[in-house]
């Protein structure tokens, strides 16, 4: 960002079309990034104005400068312009419903920064017959007011000209409303409690504005904990007012609304009241106890099915394409290895073979494992932005609020949590629709506990191999009951984890869950496309790198050190295998895996996992499952010498599991081991992609590290309790 270019910040209430307007003026060059140290995203762009381009910043929507949450703090910093001086503010107003958005506008005007008001949603105002007079508002506020329609681009040239004008104008006018003399004196005194950097060089008007902000600031709010406010002085001012029978908070907010209520009638010349009938009619159906619940269930069913199964062909297509590419390259590299061995000797041949493996297993496999998430992320964000733009997402949150309150989460957490049952990666990204940082972080930490579809093949393998079909006296299939139990367990534990983490780890002040239910609108395709594109590019470019590197490292662990096939199997073993008709290649693969770093790690891990009923071979399977949980199945296939394409319903794999014995002759796999393993898979953080996306969305390694620690501890303790408890009760 160059220092000379003027910087224009777009501010406004949520649901006023601010981002649509911002996207319209900045075009496709806008760049979304996380504000350092937060989960809040900010959009930067450039706006070509007459007389040169300006830098533009879009901050999260906010109702006031209160900064109760990380999002509002980002907005506050940009508006006050502490880090980068702000040249001008574009305050986006909701034309048909001015009262609400004027509150923020007045607060901003008090600060004395040059302001242009964009009177947005003029198309809705015209449809409703409720068109405010821009001239009258400009006269009242003393700043330019430009009617615009963000969706169509109407009025943007005039808006640009007005912005250019205020940037170059001498000084902005004083705000139209005045606090009482007593309040003004309190505000000036309160301004002294603020850090020097805030008030240095401020005009008296700006000092009053900052003082009013300080009078409402609360010392318990985490979002402003880093601002060095003299709370003792503030408490003194508040106490004196209280003793005089005054309500300072009521006065500060009240003097702004008093002005708004006074001027509002004169803004709408035709004075048609807002027509609520249409919205209320739709709400009566969509929020009806019966019809509303049915619509909600249907919408969520479609979202879930899309993630869980309808995205399947796309995912399989990407998988297949990379599998095919891997086979082609593997074939070419095998031929090259042979040619190199004959022409340049075995050492060169081995080197070419290594390169081939790295290329096929590490790089092609790694890129494939990144791109395979694209269908699910793209489709989920398509749905979320359609629901958000139309106004239904807020209704869904309203409907689910009562239920999610049990977990200490707001209704908006429902869609991410539901998505988690398909895949945690898109689900973690879907928490972007949660407005508060605390809620978003808490949801992200809990989503990996929901029973994602990658756990299902593991459950199916263990249940089918180790659990009896029927148990005498049990009216339902024991296998079906075991599967159902795993899903129920995952749900209950996710809720409990949210409650506990919400109390102990992700605390933060509880703001009242006031949620605006915006008017229904047709989704705006450019908004939808932008949301999908931003999610995909953030995933591929940032989380993707981590996934790619981690996949290569994991491949290295599983395939090094490397051996010649002749080193792995003794001639006797080969002869025996030939006689029994067992594949020599499979046996060699198994032996290579046993001797690999992962195999060594699996053995080193044995003391830790033995109390859960696992041997070192299961340890290798657990390591392999970090690539993705379902890889456990094929890794176990490798471990037991039946090749790496074993599926969960492979009878020969089931037989191998049954035949496996501990050194003392006890069987390794009993129903109890199966239960212990399933519980471990239910709670353990075994997904590199989830960790990568957690890092991307929280902009730190701290939270993925925390999620790993708490989930691993939970998994170990639970599996220990199941296995040892089961043994005490005489099972297994």
């Amino acid at each position, binding site marked *: 960002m160059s220092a000379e270019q003027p910087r224009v910040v777009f501010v406004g209430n949520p649901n006023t079309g601010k981002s649509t307007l911002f996207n319209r003026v900045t075009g496709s060059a806008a760049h979304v990034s996380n504000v350092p140290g937060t989960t809040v995203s900010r959009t930067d762009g450039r706006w070509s104005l007459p007389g040169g381009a300006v830098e533009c910043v879009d901050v999260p929507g906010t109702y006031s400068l209160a900064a109760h949450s990380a999002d509002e703090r980002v907005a506050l910093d940009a508006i006050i312009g502490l880090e980068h001086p702000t040249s001008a503010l574009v305050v986006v107003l909701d034309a048909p419903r001015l009262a609400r958005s004027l509150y923020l506008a007045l607060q901003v005007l008090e600060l004395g920064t040059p302001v242009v008001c964009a009177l947005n949603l003029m198309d809705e105002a015209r449809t409703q017959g409720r068109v405010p007079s821009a001239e009258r508002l400009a006269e009242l506020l003393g700043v330019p007011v430009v009617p615009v329609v963000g969706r169509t681009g109407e009025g943007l040239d005039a808006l640009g000209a007005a912005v250019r004008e205020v940037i170059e104008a001498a000084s902005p006018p004083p705000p139209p409303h005045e606090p009482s003399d007593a309040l003004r004196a309190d505000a000036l005194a309160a301004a002294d409690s603020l850090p020097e950097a805030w008030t240095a060089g401020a005009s008296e008007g700006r000092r009053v504005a900052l003082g009013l902000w300080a009078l409402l600031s609360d010392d318990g709010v985490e979002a402003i904990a880093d601002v060095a406010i003299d709370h003792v002085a503030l408490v003194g001012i508040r106490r004196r007012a209280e003793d005089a029978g005054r309500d300072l908070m*009521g006065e500060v907010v009240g003097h702004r609304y008093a002005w708004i209520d006074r001027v509002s009638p004169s803004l709408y010349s035709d004075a048609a009241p807002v027509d609520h009938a249409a919205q209320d009619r739709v709400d009566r159906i969509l929020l009806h*106890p019966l019809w509303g619940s049915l619509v909600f269930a249907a919408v969520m069913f479609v979202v879930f099915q899309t993630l869980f199964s309808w995205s399947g062909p796309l995912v399989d297509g990407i998988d297949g394409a990379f599998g095919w590419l891997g086979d082609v390259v593997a074939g070419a590299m095998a031929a090259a290895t042979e040619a190199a061995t004959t022409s340049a000797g075995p050492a060169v041949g081995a080197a070419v073979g290594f390169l081939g493996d790295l290329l096929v297993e590490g790089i092609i496999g790694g890129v494939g494992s990144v791109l395979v998430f694209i269908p699910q992320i793209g489709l989920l964000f398509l749905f979320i932005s359609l629901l958000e733009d139309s106004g239904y997402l807020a209704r869904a949150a309203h*409907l689910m609020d009562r239920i999610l309150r049990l977990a200490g989460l707001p209704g908006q957490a429902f869609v991410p949590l539901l998505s988690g049952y398909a895949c945690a990666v898109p689900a973690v990204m879907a928490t972007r629709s949660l407005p508060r940082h605390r809620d978003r972080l808490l949801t992200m930490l809990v989503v990996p506990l929901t029973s994602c579809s990658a756990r299902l093949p593991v459950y199916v393998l263990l249940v089918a191999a180790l659990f009896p079909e029927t148990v005498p006296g049990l009216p339902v299939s024991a296998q079906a009951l075991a599967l159902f139990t795993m899903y129920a367990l995952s749900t209950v534990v996710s809720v409990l984890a949210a409650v506990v983490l919400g109390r102990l780890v992700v605390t933060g002040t509880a703001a009242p869950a006031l949620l605006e239910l915006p008017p229904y609108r047709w989704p705006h395709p450019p908004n939808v496309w932008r949301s999908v594109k931003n999610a995909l590019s953030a995933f591929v470019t940032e989380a993707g790198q981590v996934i790619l590197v981690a996949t290569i490292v994991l491949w290295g662990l599983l395939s090094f050190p490397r051996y010649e096939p002749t080193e792995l199997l003794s001639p006797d073993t080969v002869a025996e295998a030939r006689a029994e008709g067992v594949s020599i290649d499979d046996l060699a693969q198994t032996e290579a895996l046993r001797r690999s770093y992962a195999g060594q790690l699996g053995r080193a891990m044995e003391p830790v996992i033995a109390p859960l009923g696992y041997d070192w071979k299961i340890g290798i399977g657990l390591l392999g499952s970090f690539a993705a949980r379902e890889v456990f199945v094929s890794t176990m296939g490798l471990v037991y010498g039946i090749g790496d394409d074993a599926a969960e319903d492979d009878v020969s794999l089931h037989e191998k599991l049954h035949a496996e014995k501990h050194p003392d002759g006890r069987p390794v796999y009993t129903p109890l081991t199966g239960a212990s393993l399933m519980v471990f898979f239910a709670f353990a953080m075994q997904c590199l992609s989830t960790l990568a996306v957690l890092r991307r969305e929280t902009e730190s390694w701290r939270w993925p590290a925390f999620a790993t620690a708490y989930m691993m501890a939970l998994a170990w303790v639970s599996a220990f309790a199941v296995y040892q408890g089961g043994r005490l009760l005489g099972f297994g």
Partner: protein
Amino acid sequence: MTLDDLATGSEATVASVGGEGVFRRRLLELGLLPGTRVARIGQAPLGDPLRIRVRDVVLSIRRVDARRVELNG
């Protein structure tokens, strides 16, 4: 009478907003001030949160929060 006692479809004027700190500030800043007209327009299927209309905007508010808003009459 408090906001959660208001019958669906009826309107009243806010007398006072209780609570303190962040909570009270949020309600006030959203325009729920003494003297403001507020209408209850419905509730979620489980009976909570409520749907109210203040200054032409529909808000979803939990019953426990609505209880802190005193109404006239």
